């Protein structure tokens, strides 16, 4: 085979690889992500009209969406929507719930401790680790800002 540099091959690969349909993907993400947020707002208004306090209503919305995501993941519906919606189902809190529930289902066959217990955080784990770390840093900055 004639000499073909890695750089030339990389350019060829880019040339022949179809790009993502960015416009269509954005529309899907906007529509589905927006619909999930709208559902959250409808739930919040409902909780408020039931006499719940503002903070508590927000918390109830989050837990309701998480429960809904977990149930639809278990029923095998969530990933079917996600394969079109992309970031629309990934970014809201429902995406996080899906990332925890899906490995828990997948690795159930490896036992409750070594399977479900350890592998349910295989995708969401880094989000928790760096989320907690970032909040610590934010807390320290906040503490010093308020001191002076």
């Amino acid at each position, binding site marked *: 085979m004639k000499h073909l540099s890695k750089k030339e091959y990389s350019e060829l690969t880019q040339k*022949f690889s179809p790009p993502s349909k960015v416009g269509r993907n954005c529309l899907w993400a906007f529509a589905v992500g927006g619909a999930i947020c709208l559902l959250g707002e409808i739930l919040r208004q409902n909780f408020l009209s039931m006499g719940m306090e503002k903070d508590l209503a927000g918390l109830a919305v989050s837990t309701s969406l998480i429960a809904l995501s977990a149930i639809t993941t278990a029923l095998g519906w969530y990933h079917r929507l996600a394969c079109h919606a992309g970031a629309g189902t990934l970014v809201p809190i429902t995406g996080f719930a*899906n990332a925890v529930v899906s490995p828990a289902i997948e690795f159930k066959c490896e036992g409750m401790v070594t399977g479900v217990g350890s592998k349910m955080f295989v995708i969401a784990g880094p989000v928790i680790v760096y989320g907690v770390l970032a909040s610590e840093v934010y807390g320290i900055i906040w503490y010093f800002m308020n001191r002076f």
Partner: protein
Amino acid sequence: MDCCKKGDTLFFKQPPSIAGFAAVGGKKEGEGPLRECFDLLFEDNSLGEPTWEKSESSLQRYCIEQLMKKTQCTMNQIDYVLAGDLQNQCTASAYTLRGLDVQFLGLYGACSTMTEGLGVASVLAAGGMAKRVVAMASSHFCAAERQFRTPLEYGGKRTPTAQWTVTAAGALLVEPEGAGPFVQAVTFGRVRDFQVTDATNMGAAMAPAAAETILRYFQDSGYNPEQFDGIYTGDLGEVGSKLLLEILEQNGLCLKNHFDCGTIIYDLENQEVQCGGSGCGCSAGVLAGKLLPELKKGKLRRILMMSTGALMSQTTALQGESIPGIAHLVEISSVPKEEQL
């Protein structure tokens, strides 16, 4: 031994015969254009098993049972089984073979396993070391997703260059002589790595290895592509196929009769498989289900079959290593002597 090695290619003076073939597939494969080609199709990809790994082993078991039934053989007449799959440590094959009392050689060539197995089986048969050798390969979408990618229920969008792991198994019975189709030559591949790190673009990772093997075969044999009814690659998909043709053209070889099993096995327009099928079962299913029956009937006279493999693991991928590719080629004809073609 009745064969000679020229360059990288082994040519058989007494070409071994593929005395039988069987292919089994899953749900999506049954919904594709090759639904009529499989001996057995399963509506439920679990095959009634509690884990996907067991499902793949069952797929292999059904496949080898079909082969034995079609060739009217029993397992105790088989000298060796050469089998491979995509699971860690080739467990789908090993767990299938624990239920069959036969000498077993596990092969790992990633998605190139079918032609690797057929090549080695042909060498064993032509060398007079075996009277009946079975070569088998399988892959299962769910087992592969779980091992190489994300859990099945995880909501993610597939990239346009991704390929869909085929749920299928193919098994072939190779004998030193018989009624054919016949394995005329084998070119075992060399590992090629062009620094592709994108695990969702396997076709690009494997295309240089495919080009290398095919160029070496034509150099060694002195034939030209027009002398074949079809030159089939395993699972390069749409992107890898374009890259292969481009590299070959740069090397002065123009392929007008190239087909890729990954684009044959599914309806790319309607089955949402992005760039096509992949996995050991892709070339195994197409070879055993479509190409060999057509060679047997004389509809095809002479083909080149080249399964392609991406030799990375999840560990090397996470460590940022690039993906090495490999491709093994076999020349198969419907008649024993090439002069008769």
